């Protein structure tokens, strides 16, 4: 039962009168896209800025710039994440009830590219500088997100990274056909333009000690990621021609040629495994992925798996290597594989694979890439609290008084989550340094919208926009060239119109038009979410305004007990 009718029932029961009072109240709700992920900023808000530009009096370019800035409040990487994020924001979109979810990710990518093309600067929050000098270890998504959030609040920030270039896994883990390096370069440059200093080729523990950093900086943020791939724990798994996924991808992403031979076996079911398989395929090899569970359990993004299969990658499920076969000179000849079946769920909730006795078979192979899992490199950081593999932090990301941590170093996740952790750490550090209430620093929460409160009856179905993509064989032939194109401005402007603006007024004017008692007054300079003020002095309590409200912003007010 929807919020509207539930409230209505209550009104009928509790009022000592024959006719119920359906009085409206304006309540902004949290849209499902916000629940899925808070890293694209106020998604409904930035879509609304563009979709409602005719009503708010913004030009198209103004509206798109405002939308970009709203994303950039929380995420300085829209062009990047618009390409690689698995977009959990889209999965609960109420639009799916009618036709298809909004293409939020494709729109984010468009705006990201727009921000690069018209050279929009990242928005600052404070003009005055603060005394504190903040250090960041690791120039990946979480470290750069933290650095950006501190820099825009007026802090001097220096980021140290062991590699030659900034970007972390975005640069060394994600292949160019998914994320061209110049896109990443452009978005990192905006952070540098804000005054963030990059000290590259500087490895903590070797080139500079943790103690030096601690004495130099008021606070430290460790966004060191999980750089080290785990090896293949089978006989023959530590010889030549066996790569970890992270090593292999880092080489490829630095433009190095990696000789794999004609037959490559990739072990694992995550995004690194898929990325490595697709890169090896582009190198001309026949590629087989071995995964010990079924397809449903594969952690990789579903469409990436499909892409790999379309490109000719073979997928063998419920199978795991038991040994790597080698000639006398150590040259790899093949892999002995065992069939598996799924048993009881393990601690991760996924069903545990169990070997099937007598099911072994052999696959010829020249190279094995083990993309099993990655862990942080803790060399030189052993003094910090860790559980052997991972750093351990409290809910605010603090590992001790002056040290914060986030991203893959704490728990492996998607880039979006690393960016959120970097931002939250910056917000809490800023609150502490400036003596502000740390709880107010985090995102405000309003009640969720219920799908029944979206009035679908008057909506017309229309398909979502889809990025134009190369077909399987064309993709392989294109090598490291990007496989999908950014949507056009025309497509973008059409797609924003599909948003229901769940739980936030978008100025449809129906309440205003159908209320004959004059309860609704237009706000002179409206903004998305704020179009009408409400005065109930003349309200006839018919509740029509609530029922015509297509986005669930108006609801029946509950009589106070």
């Amino acid at each position, binding site marked *: 039962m929807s919020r509207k009718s539930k409230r209505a029932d209550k009104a009928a029961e509790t009022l000592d*009168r024959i006719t119920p009072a359906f009085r409206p109240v304006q309540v902004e709700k949290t849209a499902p896209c916000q629940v899925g992920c808070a890293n694209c900023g106020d998604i409904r808000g930035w879509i609304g800025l563009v979709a409602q530009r005719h009503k708010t009096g913004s030009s198209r370019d103004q509206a798109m710039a405002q939308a970009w800035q709203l994303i950039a409040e929380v995420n300085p990487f829209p062009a990047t994440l618009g390409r690689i994020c698995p977009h959990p924001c889209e999965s609960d979109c109420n639009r799916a009830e009618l036709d298809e979810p909004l293409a939020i990710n494709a729109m984010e990518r468009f705006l990201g590219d727009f921000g690069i093309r018209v050279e929009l600067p990242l928005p600052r929050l404070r003009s005055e500088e603060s005394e504190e000098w903040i250090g960041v270890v690791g120039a990946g998504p979480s470290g750069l997100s933290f650095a950006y959030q501190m820099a825009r609040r007026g802090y001097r920030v220096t980021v140290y990274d062991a590699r030659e270039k900034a970007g972390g896994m975005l640069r060394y883990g994600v292949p160019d056909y998914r994320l061209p390096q110049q896109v990443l370069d452009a978005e990192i440059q905006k952070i540098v333009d804000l005054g963030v200093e990059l000290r590259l080729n500087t490895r903590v523990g070797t080139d500079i000690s943790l103690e030096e950093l601690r004495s130099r900086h008021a606070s430290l943020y460790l966004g060191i990621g999980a750089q080290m791939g785990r090896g293949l724990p089978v006989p023959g798994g530590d010889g030549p021609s066996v790569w970890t996924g992270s090593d292999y991808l880092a080489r490829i992403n630095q433009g190095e040629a990696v000789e794999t031979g004609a037959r490559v076996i990739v072990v694992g079911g995550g995004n690194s495994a898929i990325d490595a398989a697709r890169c090896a395929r582009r190198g001309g090899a026949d590629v087989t992925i071995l995964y010990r569970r079924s397809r449903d359990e594969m952690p990789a993004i579903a469409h990436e798996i499909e892409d790999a299969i379309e490109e000719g990658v073979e997928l063998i499920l419920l199978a795991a290597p038991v040994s790597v076969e080698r000639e006398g000179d150590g040259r790899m000849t093949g892999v002995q594989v065992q069939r598996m079946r799924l048993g009881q769920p393990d601690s991760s909730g996924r069903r545990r694979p169990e070997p099937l006795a007598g099911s072994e078979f052999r696959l010829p192979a020249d190279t094995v890439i083990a993309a099993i899992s990655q862990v942080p490199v803790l060399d030189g950081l052993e003094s910090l609290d860790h559980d052997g593999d991972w750093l351990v932090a409290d809910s605010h990301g603090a590992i001790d008084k002056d040290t914060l941590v986030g991203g893959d170093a704490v728990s492996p996740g998607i880039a979006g989550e690393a960016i959120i952790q970097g931002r939250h750490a910056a917000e809490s550090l800023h609150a502490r340094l400036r003596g502000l209430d740390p709880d107010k620093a985090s995102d405000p929460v309003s009640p969720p919208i219920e799908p029944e409160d979206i009035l679908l009856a*008057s909506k017309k179905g229309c398909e979502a926009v889809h990025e134009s993509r190369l077909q399987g064989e064309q993709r392989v032939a294109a090598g490291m060239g990007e496989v999908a194109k950014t949507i056009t401005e025309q497509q973008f402007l059409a797609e924003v119109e599909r948003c229901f603006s769940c739980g936030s007024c978008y100025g449809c*004017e129906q309440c205003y*038009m159908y209320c004959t008692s004059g309860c609704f007054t237009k706000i002179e300079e409206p903004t998305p979410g704020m179009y009408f003020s409400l005065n109930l002095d003349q309200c006839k*309590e018919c509740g029509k305004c609530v*029922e015509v409200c297509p986005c669930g912003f108006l609801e029946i007010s509950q009589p106070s007990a």
Partner: protein
Amino acid sequence: MHSTQKSVADSFSDFVESEEKDFTLRDGSRIAVVGGGPAGSFFSYFLLKMAQAIDLELEVDIFEPRSFGYCGPAGCNHCGGIVSESLVQTLAAEGIVLPRSVVQRGVESYVVHMDVGDVTIESPVHERRIAALYRGNGPREGGDSELESFDGYLQNLVTGLGARVVPELITGVEHRDDRPYLKYGDGKGGQYDLVAMAAGVNSNIINMLNELPGDYLPPKTTRGYICEFRSTKEEILRILGRAVHVFLLDIPRFEFAAIIPKGQFVTVVMVGEDLDQELVHAFLNDPVVRRTFPTNATPCVCSCSPLINLGARKRPYGDRVVMVGDSGITRLYKDGIGAAFRTGKAAATSAIFHGVSAGDFEKHFWPTCRNIVNDNRVGKVMFATNAIMKNSRLTRKAMLRMAQKEQEKENARPHMSTLLWNMFTGSAPYVEMFRGTLRPGFIYNLLLSVGAALVPGRKKTAQPRKKAA
């Protein structure tokens, strides 16, 4: 505005042009109908039918953001839901046959309730019936009912003829380059060769037509009160039968009310200048009402206080603009759908066969409106007289007695019955009703009844001639 920037020469050439302006609809002309209720549908129906007849291709966009498939106020058009017998017949003659699923119940009689007694008035001519229906999809929580929306039915009829229903709210009307320009709810807009306003009086769009040529002012209005109660079909049939129940009660400030059976719901309609919760409460708790109310009715599920058209203030047309239904001229209190039908047809006739200038509408549309306006003048007198009679116990008794006598006798001339029937159903023009009251038979019988009412001790419980249901 464009005009402020025009030079004198431009204005002059505009003037010359306007003398030769073409106000006829041509192939490809775009017509916007603002509002998808009966007025909009009837106008579109006749426009497209007539255009077909003369092989004219028109683009008709009907703007209606609401869905009549929705239960409750969002899909409703706020009315008691009575279609008069004469309209049902007229619609049938035009090829619009209302299916059973739309008509809730063939109403066969009216019961007039007064503190002095009740009288059942059978339909004056037996074949005649009136229909009770829902304009939208019924009240809140009406999802399980078997009814189909009257407005939705008409809308389907019109889309079948090629009209396009656009689910956009119109939020403003402007005049641009000699054509009306509609602003849509999504911030965009469109230009049209003709705009038919069929938005009723319960939407603020009619207050936004100042930009248009002509000197249209929205109609004068009063408020009514409608609420819906859920019961069961059996109970409603037992208590209310196949009758509409009207009440002429001596409650302070009370003017008129009716209770209408519709499937498992009953609709209570009240009309008056000074309606509030207190009066609604007093009415629903009056002993006369209580004994005519289903005993198992749940608290009201749906209520509203819609505006009712009391008459247009200025001419309901201009160059390329015409107001049909309640947005323009309608019958006083009764038969709004009938008026929507007549004004819609007249506006369509003018637009197709004569033209869409103010002058064309004045010649070919206004006469239909004027007839309604003149009839309403008579109606006002009749309602005022009725109010006076209802407020005196003596005259109430006289009315009751006269109607009872007529209903008891097999071949009596049904003077009072016909009058009451027509006043409640809106079946006949007020002028015709008024003429009826001038007949010697009516006056003679009324005086007789007044005399009889003066004689005490002859109180008799009302008994209709025979039960219809």
